């Protein structure tokens, strides 16, 4: 809401600067976004009088104008505007002046002819296209004949004003008007508002002789009032009215339309003007639209109406979407001579729905949605009628046609000083509270610190105790409230074990060289469904902005691949990322709400070991990744060790380079290389990923860390190289060694893997170090040899191993 400071001063006595006022209003309840001084930065722009014009000898569109710029000086100015003519008072930017955008105007020559400045259009001195009157949109602006030559133009154009741009929150719709803001400002400064009385002269002819009005359902239009105005002359509004409109951000159109807009800005009451001769008959009815009924609105769009829409109609046909937009057939035109003026209160919910459905949010509809000042409906109507009478030389017929009417009543709310101080943490006195309510213009009686407050309808946002406490707080001043840290019982502020563990996982991966990523949870249907650990149905939003963000992810890997692809496209080839976040899973397509599960995933592409002068680059491989995953899994301290089982079941993964991670019989995750087909889609080289279901891992049994004393006796090691069939796994060999290694075997460590020369085809050699230790005594060689020979024998029989 743009508030003209000059206009506001007519309603409240104010003498502080606009900035000071803006700051105070902001700190008391309504945020002032900016203060604009329209003339700021402009210099030497004055009224000129065009004495004569003649065509430029060397141009087909320029004119040489003789312009009087002071009582005794006339100069030549070259002008290209199509509407420049002798006899006009115009805006002249003199040599040395500054116009909009800090542009400097100098004396100069245009195609050989001297130009002593510039004749300006409104836009050239800072007006936006939105408010420039249509007649002057493509040419220079013409000032009234009374404008005094040589004087600065700012006063004539309202540019000496200051405009406060107020950001009105939905609860303060009362401030969507000059008068509402005047009340607010008066309360802040302890001033009184003074609004000029409306003087309306009615003709003797009653309006009821030319128009019948009916409201079908009083709920739809609890207050519906029309006036009929005859002998209207449509013409441009006087400059004072146009100034008010454009300073409020509204484009002047013609006198009748401008007056309805002015009244809406002034009183907050939207009005509508119909052309009486175009409504088709002598009846106006407020009713619901019939299903299938059609209406073309002012903007030229056709709408199919429904019984949820309130319309203004004649006998048979809808004319208007009530409170939202007028119809194309009955709007005010230059030919209009009789005007029907409407001031109403419509049911907010229906207005809102209609405006939403047809995408026709307007200043009027948003005011009806949020409510209007019910005490001011008739005043606004009469104020408008009297202005039309004055400015359109018209006659207002006698009487309002008002089939429904409301009697606005004050609302009574109680609150005590004690309660106010209890909520605010203050020590405000009863007298201070009383003074605040009085400044707000509320009726107030007080007994023993308990207030009975009578709130006028112009503050329809106030209904309960909390509303009054807020009024006191803001007028007392938020800056005056003390700052305390509460004295109530202390509470432990601790992360849960689950929250702590998740933070540890993040630290672990970062220490391992992966950076944390946060990807979008809404993605494409395909990406959402890829890399699933478990079967799940997708969850999609009803009305996505784009297919790229339509379906909730069921895996974290797709998002990470998007990230890697984004990096690769920017020549960042070696990237290691992880993400911890939620996936959204559900078993049945009919379920609406998915389960939200915490997952952890990583994706690495390019070189894992970066090449340097002293080491070769090494691309990421399965075993590097497995080392990272094992390190992450170690954070869980599981009582059952995780197993890695080769799998080809993931269609988006490389069938030979992927393992499921099992704990007991639960699959808690997987790792491996992404399928080259997927890699191609994302334009990525060999890329390795893992994904873990943290919910399952967190639910598994974990063991506390138990300290074991460091052994005091030396350990003995034995190395063995086993030649086995290619198909025998390391896991199988290690399991056998551990199962048969005897009581003192403490560790099995694979230190070499070999296949090739010196080994038969189809065979491979694995070399292990076995470590033996007796915590209670020094082991003898003989004890170790016995145990070692036993294991070797089992390996030979169980796995067909030969010792190399």
């Amino acid at each position, binding site marked *: 809401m743009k508030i003209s400071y000059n206009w506001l001063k007519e309603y409240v006595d104010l003498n502080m600067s606009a900035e000071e006022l803006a700051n105070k209003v902001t700190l008391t309840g309504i945020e002032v976004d900016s203060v604009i001084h329209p003339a700021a930065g402009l210099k030497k722009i004055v009224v000129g009088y065009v004495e004569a014009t003649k065509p430029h000898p060397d141009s087909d569109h320029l004119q040489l104008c003789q312009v009087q710029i002071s009582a005794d000086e006339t100069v030549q100015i070259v002008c290209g505007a199509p509407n420049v003519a002798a006899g006009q008072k115009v805006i002249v930017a003199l040599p040395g002046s500054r116009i909009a955008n800090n542009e400097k105007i100098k004396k100069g020559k245009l195609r050989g002819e001297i130009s002593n400045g510039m004749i300006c259009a409104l836009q050239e001195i800072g007006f936006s296209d939105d408010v420039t009157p249509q007649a002057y949109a493509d040419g220079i602006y013409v000032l009234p004949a009374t404008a005094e030559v040589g004087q600065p133009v700012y006063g004539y154009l309202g540019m000496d004003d200051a405009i406060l741009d107020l950001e009105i929150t939905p*609860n303060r719709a009362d401030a969507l008007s000059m008068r509402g803001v005047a009340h607010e400002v008066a309360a802040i400064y302890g001033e009184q508002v003074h609004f000029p009385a409306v003087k309306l002269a009615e003709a003797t002819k009653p309006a009821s002789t030319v128009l019948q009005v009916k409201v079908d359902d009083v709920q739809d239009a609890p207050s519906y009032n029309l006036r009929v105005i005859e002998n209207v002359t449509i013409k441009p509004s006087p400059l004072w009215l146009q100034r008010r409109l454009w300073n409020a951000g509204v484009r002047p159109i013609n006198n009748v339309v401008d007056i309805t807009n002015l009244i809406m800005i002034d009183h907050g009451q939207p009005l509508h003007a119909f052309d009486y001769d175009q409504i088709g008959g002598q009846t106006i009815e407020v009713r619901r639209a019939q299903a299938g009924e059609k209406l073309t609105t002012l903007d030229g769009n056709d709408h199919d109406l429904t019984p949820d829409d309130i319309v203004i109609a004649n006998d048979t046909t809808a004319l208007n979407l009530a409170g939202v937009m007028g119809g194309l057939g009955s709007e005010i035109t230059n030919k209009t001579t009789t005007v029907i003026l409407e001031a109403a209160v419509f049911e907010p*919910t229906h207005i*809102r729905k209609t405006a939403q459905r047809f995408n026709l949010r307007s200043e009027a509809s948003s005011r009806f949605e949020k409510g209007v000042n019910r005490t001011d409906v008739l005043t606004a109507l009469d104020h408008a009628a009297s202005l039309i009478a004055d400015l359109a030389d018209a006659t207002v017929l006698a009487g309002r046609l008002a089939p429904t009417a409301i009697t606005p009543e004050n609302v009574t709310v109680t609150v005590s000083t004690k309660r106010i101080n209890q909520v605010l*943490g*203050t020590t405000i006195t009863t007298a201070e509270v009383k003074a605040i309510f009085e400044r707000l213009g509320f009726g107030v009686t007080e007994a023993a610190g308990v207030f009975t407050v009578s709130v006028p309808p112009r503050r329809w946002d106030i209904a309960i105790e*909390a509303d009054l406490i807020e009024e006191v707080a803001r007028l007392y001043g938020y800056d005056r409230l003390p*700052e305390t840290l509460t004295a109530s019982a202390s509470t432990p502020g601790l992360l849960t074990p689950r929250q702590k563990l998740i933070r540890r996982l993040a630290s672990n991966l970062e220490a391992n060289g992966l*950076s944390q990523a946060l990807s979008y949870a809404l993605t494409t249907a395909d990406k959402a469904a890829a890399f699933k650990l478990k079967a799940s149905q997708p969850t999609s939003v*009803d009305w996505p902005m784009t297919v790229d963000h339509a379906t909730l992810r069921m895996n974290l890997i797709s998002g990470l691949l998007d990230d890697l692809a984004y990096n690769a496209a920017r020549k*960042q080839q070696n990237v290691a990322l992880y993400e911890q976040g939620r996936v959204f899973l559900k078993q049945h397509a009919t379920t609406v709400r998915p389960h939200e599960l915490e997952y952890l995933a990583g994706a690495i592409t390019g070189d894992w070991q970066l090449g340097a002068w002293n080491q070769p680059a090494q691309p990421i491989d399965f075993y590097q990744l497995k080392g990272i995953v094992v390190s992450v899994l170690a954070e869980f301290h599981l009582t059952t060790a995780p197993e890695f089982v080769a799998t080809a079941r993931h269609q988006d993964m490389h069938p030979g380079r992927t393992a499921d991670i099992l704990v007991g019989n639960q699959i808690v995750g997987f790792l491996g290389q992404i399928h080259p087909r997927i890699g191609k889609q994302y334009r990525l080289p060999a890329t390795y990923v893992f994904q873990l279901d943290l919910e399952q891992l967190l639910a598994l049994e974990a063991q506390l860390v138990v300290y074991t004393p460091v052994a005091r006796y030396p350990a003995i090691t034995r190395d063995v190289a086993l030649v086995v069939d290619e198909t025998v796994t390391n896991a199988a060999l290690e399991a056998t060694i551990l199962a048969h290694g005897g009581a003192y075997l403490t560790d099995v460590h694979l230190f070499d893997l070999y296949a090739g020369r010196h080994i038969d085809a189809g065979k491979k050699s694995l070399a292990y170090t076995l470590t033996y230790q007796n915590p209670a005594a020094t082991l003898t060689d003989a004890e170790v040899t016995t145990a070692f020979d036993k294991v070797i024998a089992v390996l030979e029989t169980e796995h067909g191993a030969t010792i190399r």
Partner: protein
Amino acid sequence: MSSLQEKLSALQKQGIEEIKKSDDLKQLNNIRVNLLGKKGPITEVLRGMRDLTKEERPAVGSFANKVRDALTDSIETRKQALEAAKIEHQLAQEKLDVTLPGTPIQQGTHHVIMQTVETLEAVFLGMGFKVVLGYEVEEEKYNFEKLNMPKDHPARDMQDTFYINQDILMRTHMSPDEARTLEQHDFSTGPMKMIGPGRVYRRDTDDATHSHQFFQMEGQYIGEQVTMADLKGTLSFAIRQFFGAERKIRFRPSYFPFTEPSVEVDISCFKCNGAGCDVCKHSGWIEVLGAGMTHPNVLKAAGVDPVKYGGFAFGLGIDRFAMLKYGIDDIRQFYQNDIRFLSQFN
């Protein structure tokens, strides 16, 4: 003095000369063997003691031992000097170019959004708040209805919503967690103090300042004696912890359906310090969070007596905090995960 003693003196003098002149360890060793060995001149002199009288022998023997000790000491001293020189010479050959780069060790970084979340969590944990994580896919009633935003409430327009169906939606803010926690809280165990950080969703087109997904943190403190002064004290403390102790803070009235009185909190612009600049849109102030005293309707909806209990709630944009703190000008960077962006926040 006997001739033997003279001989010994001469040997000592000559030996020390030679020792001093020796310039490597091998030569020194030869000198030692020549002088002090079994076939050396000193041994030979001592053999001549046989010819001395019984009375003469102790004096000469003692003298001979002194000579031997002097020579031994001298050799040892020379040996240490030669060894030190040798090591010094060797180390001089082992000089590195210390300006060559170290072997790269990969280190990941924590996402700046999560750093921001955790910094704020630490502040509130220290004040006795707990961290609660709710649902990203929420029921309409927790996202709106129970927060004093019934259907058709104009304030719903402030937040464009992704709906799954008419009852289920992507949460548009973190307030549903507050409503749920409030419903479950047992006030006989003390006040309820919680913060809830997480992802929220709005039906917005992504650009430099808008994102359909971003992070918020909300918090709530409800008890029997919690005042708006506590709101000011708590939030001032948290803001200064995050943005710096030198920031000026102002509280001004605002509107949220779920609080009354409602507050918006501004901090003095850290670019211009209040003078006015592009960052603060020439106001000198930057809006950082919204808060207020929990609306009685919200307490009632959760089954909490609004006469007995009251308190405050607040909400802030994590992305906005991070953007302000680091001067990040495009919100999309948080979710593109460009490694050149991520790795700056280490």
